[in-house]
């Protein structure tokens, strides 16, 4: 409906429509007040011009007016604040059942990896009508994942994960820009988001060559790095059992509670001492420099894939070593030497 307005970029996500509504609301406020000021200035300038209005009438001020033009704009801005904040919260809270895709930004390209292992560069295929959450990592500097047609933007920051999510409403090809200046070829770090009918998407997924799903590759890496010597569910475990860790609340040895999200898993691999699970010794070494950004994504995805299982794949007993304080979920983190 808003598409009839020229100069609006395509509206291709549920979020885009909402942003445009707020945009139009603020625009009307802006147009109203700037016209008001412009008209007043012009009218006064002509009406009270010196050639016809020789003598100015001295006016000190007016408390009522001052209060009026303080309070009224304040009220309007508070409406905009609440409205914009609600939209923003929605944008920062991906629906729980989102389909997930990993994205890595590097100078100067975008790489995406789908759950089943398909990889693509500077193109992102997504199905229409599904919630899609992109988990973003950067290999070098700060980039920013920006799809104007979805009104979605998220900086991609080295050293941690950030997220963007959307639900595309229209098939088509849309711009993907890097919007955070990232060096020489910044303006070349562009790509396309290709929104397809779900059936076409499935077909596309099936078409590409893959070397195993993300989680499978992650599992291989998990064994390669010997993570499983400590992260196990039997009594010999020196690290927390990772089954069902993801998404749970973890109690740390200093009493803090954190949610085990992607950043937590990532940090636990790279900086194991930062958050140590209650009941465990901080004995895990760092894997900084040993795992690539993509390898990290695979490991994270592997840990996530254990979410539905009750225990580590090699063992289905419940973890004995986990502190009893957290009945709901054992926690993650670290071990091995």
């Amino acid at each position, binding site marked *: 409906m808003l598409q009839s307005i020229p100069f609006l970029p395509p509206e291709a996500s549920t979020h885009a429509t909402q942003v445009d509504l707020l945009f139009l609301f603020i625009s009307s406020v802006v147009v109203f007040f700037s016209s008001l000021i412009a008209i007043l200035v012009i009218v006064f300038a002509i009406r009270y011009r010196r050639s016809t209005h020789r003598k100015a009438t001295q006016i000190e001020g007016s408390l009522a007016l001052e209060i009026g033009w303080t309070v009224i704009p304040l009220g309007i801005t508070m409406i905009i604040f609440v409205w914009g904040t609600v939209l923003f919260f929605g944008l920062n809270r991906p629906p729980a059942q989102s389909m997930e895709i990993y994205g890595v930004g590097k100078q100067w390209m975008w790489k995406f990896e789908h759950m089943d292992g398909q990889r693509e560069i500077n193109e992102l295929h997504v199905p229409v009508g599904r919630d899609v959450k992109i988990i973003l990592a950067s290999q070098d500097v700060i980039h920013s994942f920006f799809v104007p047609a979805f009104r979605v933007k998220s900086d991609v920051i080295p050293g941690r994960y950030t997220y963007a999510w959307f639900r595309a409403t229209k098939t088509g090809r849309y711009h993907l820009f890097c919007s955070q200046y990232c060096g020489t070829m910044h303006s070349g770090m562009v790509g396309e988001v290709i929104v397809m009918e779900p059936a076409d998407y499935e077909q596309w997924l099936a078409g590409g060559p893959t070397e195993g799903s993300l989680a499978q590759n992650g599992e291989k890496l998990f064994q390669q790095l010997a993570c499983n010597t400590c992260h196990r569910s039997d009594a010999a475990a020196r690290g927390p059992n990772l089954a069902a860790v993801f*998404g749970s609340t973890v109690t740390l040895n200093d*009493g803090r509670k954190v949610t085990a999200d992607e950043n937590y898993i990532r940090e636990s691999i790279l900086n194991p001492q930062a958050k140590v699970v209650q009941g465990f010794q901080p004995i895990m070494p760092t894997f900084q420099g040993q795992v690539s950004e993509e390898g990290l994504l695979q490991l994270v995805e592997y840990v996530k894939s254990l979410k539905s299982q009750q225990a580590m794949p090699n063992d289905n007993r419940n973890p004995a070593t986990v502190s009893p304080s957290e009945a709901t979920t054992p926690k993650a983190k670290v071990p091995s030497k």
Partner: protein
Amino acid sequence: MSEHVVPIKTYVIIFLALLLGTGVTVWASFADLDFQLSGHTFPGSVIVALVIACTKATLVILFFMHVKYSSRLTWAVVIAGFFWLILLLALTMNDYAFRGLLTYPSQ
């Protein structure tokens, strides 16, 4: 000249108080002052150290730097300076303290 001359005795007392504060801080760091409050452990010696540091700084500002005897303007400048420092620290920590909040859907 309308300035205030602080008696030597005051300076000596402040000097001794500052030395005492230093001693207590060092002692506190070797004592185990951690305490528990609603499930969290608080590092008692760090808290003691910071409280003493703030007290010492206040003493220096008030007496050695004569602020106690200075105009309201000087007070305003000092307060503004530290107020802005707190703004810098507090608003930045406002980010770090709440990182991760809301970013993942509750399961």
